[in-house]
């Protein structure tokens, strides 16, 4: 592939990366503390949970779908996992069941969309309420707190000086990249988003793949729940509120189109880091969380406007 063709294909990702570097530079000038190793690791750790959810969201959005239920699914997976751990269920089966709850909730979303023919927005909006209600009902609205050190290691451990959540995030993104670019699942993810009708005519089992993709998205929300619970040493039924919005924002800032058919997971990772750096930097600068919301909202709008302008100029 020529360099020109490569840039044409991946230019958007370089654009997002450039945006992240500029943002980091600005933060460094405004507050020198930003560019210390401990602070950068802190940013990465805080970004990890949203980034892991956003990796699954990227698959869903490439199929021209959406998953609004991930925040609630995170809460439900978290409280199920926590209750199992407190009942003395060993770590590995408890983790498997906790993440499995997320996966099956996602599969349920997928079935509502493929068999039930509901628009993804409606199916997952309903699930958002159902999973939140289930988490509250299951716990009676109370958090479940206090876990063993071996479980907490999943968030507090630092092998080779790198926090576990950051390692998990990197592992997930490499796996997602692999799935999306090297496997049939990935190819059909793009195909479904590009032209679902044509993909069905080609004989691809679109129902199966779509259901699987929503399952992956739910499963990653379950994994995020594990890390969040270990980090807070507590599972809250109200955890993960608005996480779906952050995950969608990270995906969109990273260049994935809500119209489907295009996008890359590493763009999403950079998108999640942009949101993380903004939050961290603005906090270091003592800007109120109210004003932070305005700034992050504006960044999402400007990123997508820029993206649209760039695409137009290329045509």
């Amino acid at each position, binding site marked *: *592939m020529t360099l020109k063709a490569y840039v044409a294909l991946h230019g958007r990702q370089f654009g997002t990366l450039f945006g992240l570097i500029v943002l980091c530079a600005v933060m460094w000038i405004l507050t020198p503390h930003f560019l210390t190793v401990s602070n950068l690791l802190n940013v990465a750790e805080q970004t990890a949970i949203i980034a892991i959810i956003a990796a699954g969201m990227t698959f869903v959005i490439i199929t021209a779908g959406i998953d609004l239920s991930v925040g609630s699914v995170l809460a439900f997976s978290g409280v199920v996992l926590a209750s199992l751990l407190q009942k003395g269920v060993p770590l590995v089966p408890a983790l498997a069941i906790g993440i499995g709850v997320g996966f099956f909730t996602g599969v349920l979303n997928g079935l509502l969309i493929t068999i039930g023919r509901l628009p993804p927005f409606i199916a997952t909006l309903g699930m958002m309420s159902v999973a939140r209600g289930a988490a509250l009902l299951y716990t009676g609205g109370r958090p479940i707190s206090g876990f063993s050190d071996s479980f907490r290691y999943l968030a507090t451990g630092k092998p080779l000086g790198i926090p576990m959540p950051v390692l998990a995030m990197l592992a997930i993104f490499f796996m997602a990249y692999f799935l999306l670019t*090297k496997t*049939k699942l990935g190819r059909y993810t793009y*195909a479904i*988003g590009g032209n679902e*009708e*044509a993909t069905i005519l*080609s*004989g691809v089992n679109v129902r199966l793949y779509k259901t699987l993709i929503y399952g992956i998205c739910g499963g990653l929300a379950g994994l995020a729940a594990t890390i969040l619970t270990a980090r807070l040493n507590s599972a809250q039924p109200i955890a993960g509120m608005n996480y779906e919005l952050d995950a969608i924002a990270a995906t969109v800032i990273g260049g994935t189109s809500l119209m489907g058919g295009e996008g890359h997971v590493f763009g999403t990772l950079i998108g999640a880091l942009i949101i993380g750096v903004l939050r961290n930097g603005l906090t270091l600068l003592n800007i109120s969380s109210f004003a932070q919301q305005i700034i992050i909202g504006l960044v999402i709008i400007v990123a997508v406007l820029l993206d649209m302008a760039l695409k137009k100029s290329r045509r």
Partner: protein
Amino acid sequence: MTQTALLELKGICRRFPGVIALDDVDLDVNPGEIVALIGENGAGKSTLMKIIGGVIQPDAGTMRFAGREVIVRSPREAGLQGIEFIHQELSVLDNLDVAANIFLMREPTYGGPLKLIDRQKIYVEADKYLLKVGLEISSRTPLSLLSIAQRQLVEIARALSAGARLLIMDEPTSSLTLSESKLLLQIVRPKGRRRQHYLHYPSPR
């Protein structure tokens, strides 16, 4: 030399509510033959094509393909028999490259449990089929850069790579310019030992 027909339709009937679309239709297509179906709107051309392509089922009648009686319940089953249907609304994916379009659902893989897509092979194989349909572009080209006529050739390449023995084209020239139409007919016209067969009906012009 007596030749057995590749496709034999006998007594095909199909009713829709309030209208008989096809009434006792017979049709033979010989190997190597190009057949054009011509008729007014509502004459039942599309219905007949869709029955051959497995998109809809006949109410009565039999279909023999390559000497055997067949029933095709879906486009997929038609494809397994060697019947490929190129729809008027081209069903290509313009967010993928040409090779991905040609081999969608039939991606060459490395084998093994992971079934990873063999990206080298997919391009090499796709280039071969592009050559066969006279399309002088790289199979790495994004489909979005191609003209309508080129996209149609990609569909033909796709059908050939699927092992098509009978190719059905629904109004293939309807969205083409005159020169593009001529090019398409040149490519479709069988030459030498080529053993694909085409059945198409031009748009009323």
